[in-house]
């Protein structure tokens, strides 16, 4: 058996790889021009400051280059062949029955309404560039929680100043080239405001589906958790497979105030023609807590590093992530942690699995500032290689500027041992079942952090990725 290798067949992604006709959709011409940016802004009837921000970001985008000394190639991404705005001809619905049939069918196949009925405080669903459905439980609304689109918040005199105050401050358009692109053409996403002291017993969820071919999705998520409040936000993403490149360049800005807690769970399951250049960042205050649970399964190329800035004293951050790279995938994922407050703590645990020629890169940075007295941070990264045509790299960086801080890092790369597989086979498993069992066990620390339906989805994805014949 030692000479044999697991040959994994193409993944059956029929659950995700179905497409719907774009007939009747509003689709802006491919490319990126000031006129397109103005059209998006005009369509949304935005305040003047937002248009100015978009145009400034467009200039930044054209003036910036990608770094050439690190990261996967995005040479296959040509913005001249990407439409930055595609919208189904429908208005945002609050009642599921008002959602157009084909879109409703899409989300039902993905299990979104079911999830809402079971255990969610509110649901948002974005289809291509626009939110098509948004709803929240009445009792949650009564607590003063706001869960709406950024567009709707901008049209509300109460919330427009709040959006203006926070939008684009944590991830500025100057952050990197695709942050600039995001601010030029953003559309859709969520605005969440949790008032002081409010605890949501159920999570809020947004699901993003990019159906259009040769298109981009640029949703913006802005969440403000006021002091002492508590929120679990879930984000899911998927897209069908095309042979043309699609682009996802969203932005997630999370403001977690003193004594507050936010858990942000994501399963990114983009199709393998997707360039996923997403930016997520949280800043947390004194005695507050940020928890990330992140699963990256799809996309052709990913650049994804959720960032946490521990600005206040005694803040804490946990990052739990898993990345699965298969054929044609080059996934550069990880996280960044910046500890600036005293007695702050951070814990990073990641897993990655590479198979079938897939490339996984775990990239992280831990920065401990001068004033972060007694800060503690541990980073643990484990990588599993399932064949000898795949690749797994681990590239962490640490910058420690406080003499009382303690920072630890450990990483291991290896494969499933033949002894383990033999043992399981001696108990009646086939070789494929044995390997799947081991991979599921490897991923278990991540899946147990996810809500039940997402854990099921993740395990299903692993099963899909692992199924195949032994060669």
């Amino acid at each position, binding site marked *: 058996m030692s000479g044999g290798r697991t040959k994994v067949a193409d993944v059956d992604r029929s659950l995700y790889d179905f497409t719907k006709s774009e007939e009747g959709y509003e689709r802006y011409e491919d490319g990126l021009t000031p006129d397109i940016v103005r059209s998006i802004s005009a369509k949304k009837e935005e305040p003047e400051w937002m248009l100015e921000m978009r145009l400034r970001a467009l200039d930044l985008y054209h003036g910036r280059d990608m770094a050439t000394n*690190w990261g996967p190639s995005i040479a296959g991404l040509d913005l001249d062949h990407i439409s930055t705005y595609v919208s189904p001809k429908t208005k945002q619905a609050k009642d599921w029955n008002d959602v157009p049939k084909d879109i409703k069918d899409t989300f039902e196949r993905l299990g979104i309404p079911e999830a809402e009925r079971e255990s969610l405080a509110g649901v948002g669903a974005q289809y291509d560039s626009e939110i098509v459905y948004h709803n929240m439980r009445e009792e949650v609304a009564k607590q003063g929680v706001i869960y709406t689109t950024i567009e709707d918040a901008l049209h509300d005199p109460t919330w427009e100043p709040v959006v203006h105050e926070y939008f684009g401050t944590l991830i500025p358009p100057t952050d990197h080239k695709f942050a600039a692109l995001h601010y030029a053409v953003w559309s859709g996403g969520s605005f969440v405001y949790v008032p002081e002291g409010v605890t949501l017993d159920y999570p809020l969820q947004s699901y993003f589906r990019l159906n259009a071919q040769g298109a981009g999705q640029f949703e913006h998520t802005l969440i403000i958790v006021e002091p002492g409040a508590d929120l679990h936000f879930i984000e899911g993403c998927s897209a069908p497979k095309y042979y043309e490149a699609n682009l996802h360049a969203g932005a997630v800005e999370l403001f977690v105030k003193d004594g507050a807690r936010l858990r942000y769970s994501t399963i990114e399951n983009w199709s393998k023609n997707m360039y996923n250049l997403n930016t997520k960042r949280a800043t947390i205050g004194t005695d507050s807590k940020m928890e990330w649970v992140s699963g990256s399964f799809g996309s052709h190329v990913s650049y994804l590093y959720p960032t946490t800035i521990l600005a206040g004293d005694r803040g804490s951050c946990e990052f739990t992530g898993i990345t699965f790279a298969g054929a044609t995938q080059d996934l550069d994922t990880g996280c960044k942690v910046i500890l600036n407050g005293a007695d702050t703590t951070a814990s990073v645990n990641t897993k990655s699995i590479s198979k079938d020629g897939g490339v996984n890169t775990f990239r992280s940075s831990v920065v401990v500032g001068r004033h972060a007295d007694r800060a503690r941070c541990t980073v643990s990264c484990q990588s599993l*290689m399932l*064949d000898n045509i795949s690749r797994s790299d681990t*590239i962490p*960086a*640490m910058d420690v500027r406080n003499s009382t801080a303690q920072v630890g890092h450990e990483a*291991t790369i290896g*494969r499933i041992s033949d002894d383990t597989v033999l043992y399981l086979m001696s108990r009646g498993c086939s070789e494929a079942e044995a390997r799947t069992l081991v991979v599921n066990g490897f991923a278990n620390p991540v899946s147990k952090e996810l809500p039940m339906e997402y854990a099921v989805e993740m395990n299903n994805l692993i099963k899909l990725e692992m199924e195949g014949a032994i060669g």
Partner: protein
Amino acid sequence: MSTESIQTPMADTVTLGRVNQPPAQTWNRLHVNDITLTVPKISRKGDVYFALPQLFSKVETGMGEKVTAWVTSQAADARYVEVPAHTVREEPVVIAVDADKGEVVDTGVMVREGATATIVVAVTGTSDKPSTSASLLRVIAESGAHVSVIEVIGATDAQQHLESVGIHADDDARIDVRQYALGGGTVAVGFAADLAGRRARVDLNTRYLASGHETLDINHVVRQRGRDTRAQISESGVLDGSAKKSLRATIDLIHGGRGSKGSEAETVLVIGDNVVNKTMPVILCDEDDVAGNHGATIGSVSPEQIAYLEDRGLSRREAEQLFVRALFEDAIIHSPEKRSHEAAVRRAEAVLGADVAHDFDEGVSPVLDEEA
């Protein structure tokens, strides 16, 4: 070799950019990917010096091609040493670098099949005048060769030193390396080992001290190309004052190197309040039947440990200095000949005072062969 990156800000210096660059890099805004050095440039146009055999140009070095090009253009005659097959060279190959004179030396050592050799690089500085010195050492270890390399860098706060090493190891070659970076205003250390042969092995042990306003920049790269190779990298050091240290350590498990194992671990003790400590431990893995791991621990002496020692009459500073003393003791113990021993003792005198240094000299020094 490219000279495009060599710019000339002043007539007598050149700026070497992207030095000590690891094979895989990360966010440039962290300023951890490389170091930029300004070095003197002596025109040797028209002079003809002894150069190493062409074979050595294929040996990858830790600091990279720009430093190799600069050293070979600045050093006078390169020194070539060959250790015959199946022999044991008793006396070490000593590369003595006088930092006060700004010496730049280029050395190539061919250790033939089954031979054994020890190579010592000793960098000694006592002057408070600025200078730049450099040593470029390239080693080819043929099948079954056993090579020990001991580097002791004891420059002063005013001095800059570049220390670049490249080693190619064939089947069953064994490489033991001990690096002691004990001081210098700016010290850049690069080490690259290509474990090309089956069962080739490298054990790299680096210990360092950076204090005051010193800058220490280290780049370690081990390519595990052959089957069943082993790499064991251990770095530990003490950072004091406003020292700046960057360490990049890469284990590259190359496709085809089945059965190989690589391990890297760094332990850093931070005792200065204004230290900048950057670490980038990298594993690159292009093969499944391998094992790679790395770890880094960065911290200070814990309050509990300090309290324990204070109860026994040691101040915090005295307790922390015990770690520094241990580092110098280790360097002196492992210095196998006079020049490296002197480099370590001179530096210990500058850091810990003459009394302590002479205690080491009497208490822990090995018996040295004066002829060595």
